[in-house]
């Protein structure tokens, strides 16, 4: 059993990541869900996290985090995720509410108090994680790995930068330079897990309310990805992190040096991956570059099917 904190900005693919982590197939112990400004404003991300928790009957704390990046001004992506940040499926307003306090303090407290090492799983901008590392550097000793979605050797928000890193490159720099082992799921790998019509149909064939919810997420996400990026479906970027924690052998990774660009004229927010090892800089990141797509989607189906068990199946 691995202790995880899911730091996210749900977000269609964040929602799917949570669903994977919370399933019966998963052996992850979710210590909490923390939210951060990213896909949309943090307040909306928090509401979405609460809605997902309620849908899953997931009894873990939800704590709101940073409203804006460390240095630059906010940047959101409603054109991808809709006005609510999770457009598509309609869920009722949550009855549960977020814990008082700030995500940064929650992360620090959980890590410091845990008897076993904690894995941080950020799937949004890295603002909360950077702030926690700065506020209480001793947490480093009890974090075994940061498994994040972000970056890549090419970009989507700009030609060179992926959205999460672009939103808060300074925070990313803090995280990558922290010395904590980082496993990175960037666009190189996440663009290999696209929920095409075929995948959506496979999800649609599963008869439970969670699979139905995921199907609606994928339909909306696929539309915006088609319109905005010319894709034939939505890549479920963030889900790679929790799929990796469930089954690391799905992915092909290489241990490489990654440096964050915070100054480049055209490349602010780029994760500079030293693929050919030309810099002489020590490797610091486990970079995911490939995935066994067939095995990935089979496990994904199995996870969604696991929600069919039990008497509360609708």
């Amino acid at each position, binding site marked *: 059993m691995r202790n995880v904190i899911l730091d996210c900005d749900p977000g269609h693919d964040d929602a799917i990541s949570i669903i994977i982590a919370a399933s019966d197939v998963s052996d992850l112990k979710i210590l909490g869900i923390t939210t951060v400004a990213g896909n949309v404003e943090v307040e909306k991300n928090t509401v979405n996290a609460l809605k997902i928790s309620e849908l899953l009957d997931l009894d873990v704390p939800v704590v709101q985090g940073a409203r804006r990046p460390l240095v630059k001004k906010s940047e959101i992506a409603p054109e991808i995720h809709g006005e609510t940040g999770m457009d598509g499926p309609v869920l009722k307003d949550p009855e549960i509410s977020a814990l008082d306090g700030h995500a940064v303090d929650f992360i620090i407290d959980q890590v410091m108090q845990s008897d076993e090492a904690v894995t941080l799983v950020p799937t949004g901008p890295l603002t909360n994680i950077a702030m926690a590392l700065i506020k209480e550097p001793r947490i480093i000793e009890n974090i075994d790995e940061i498994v994040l979605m972000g970056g890549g*050797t*090419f*970009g*989507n928000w700009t*030609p*060179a930068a992926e959205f999460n890193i672009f939103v808060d490159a300074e925070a990313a720099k803090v995280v990558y330079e922290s010395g904590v082992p980082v496993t990175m799921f960037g666009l190189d790998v996440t663009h290999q897990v696209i929920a095409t019509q075929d995948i959506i149909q496979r999800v649609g064939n599963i008869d439970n309310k969670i699979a139905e919810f995921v199907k609606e997420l994928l339909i909306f996400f696929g539309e915006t990805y088609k319109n*905005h*990026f*010319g*894709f034939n479906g939505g890549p479920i970027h963030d889900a790679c992190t929790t799929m990796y924690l469930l089954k690391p052998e799905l992915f092909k990774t290489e241990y490489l*040096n990654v*440096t964050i*660009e915070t*100054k*480049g*004229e*055209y*490349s602010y927010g*780029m994760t*500079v*991956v*030293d*693929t*050919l090892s*030309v*810099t002489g800089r020590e490797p610091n990141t486990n970079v995911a570059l490939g995935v066994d797509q067939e095995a990935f989607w089979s496990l994904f189906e199995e996870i969604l099917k696991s929600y069919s068990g039990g008497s509360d199946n609708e």
Partner: protein
Amino acid sequence: MSKINVWIDCDPGIDDAIALAAAAASQDALHIHGISTVAGNQTIERVTNNALALSSFLKLDVPVVRGAEGPLTRAKEDAGHVHGETGLGNTVLPKTGKQAEKGNTFQLIRDAIMNLPEDEKMTLVPVGPLTNIALLLKVYPEVNTRIKEIVLMGGGTFGNRTPTAEFNIWGDPEAAKIVFDSDLPIVMCGLDVTHKSGLDRNQVEAMFTSQNEVQKAFGDMLKFYFDSPAYINSDLVHIHDAVAVIYVTNPEIFKGIQVSVDVDCTDDINRGMTVCDLRKTAPEAGRNVTLLNDIDLTAFQNILLEKLSSL
């Protein structure tokens, strides 16, 4: 069919040498108007001497002009470790009495372009840092309308000098920016395609064991590459600059996409990066660059070997 007018700008350099050899062997298709040199792989003296020696050795009877001795703004850095101290590995070519043209280099290149028959244009083939080309475009802007395209070796979506910058572009990013921002049609033979091209060990061995003096000389140069640490575990030796020349003679064996390219000139980790906008929904405007990203390797090898064996 009329020949393609070309001007070659280079910094020989082993792969430049092969590029010149391929060009010399293609004179049925190419009208080579001249060769200019630029500091890059080695100092301007060395690369100019090498260009002169190569043109004599290849019986390539065209003017050689000596160009910029260093980048526009940054300090020089050569690649002696890659190309050996002479710039041609350990190969020593016969001495030549040939001299570089006297006179203003850029005026000479300009005149070669402007003196073409009115209905013809020049293809520029720069395979070193883009210093000379940038200066030419700035000093004599009238050449713009007389340039068909610039087929250059440089850049790509990843680097070899740094993680993101290829050596030629890294050598003079400001010059590259001038060239890429010129709106001229540019064909970028960058690392995406040059890393998919080259000759294998058997092909190189056949060259350096050849009785033919020309074959042996170029075979020795390529063996120098193969014996270097970068290629010790590789089955294929890349001959970056030759790819640009083969593109000019045989574009049909290549694949590419139209993209816009920005050159990072900041003094930071991505200096010299050719930032290619690969996003499908990127704006159509500004896509003046053909990013070559694939090649028929067997066809490339056959064409190159056939050209070299004709010398």
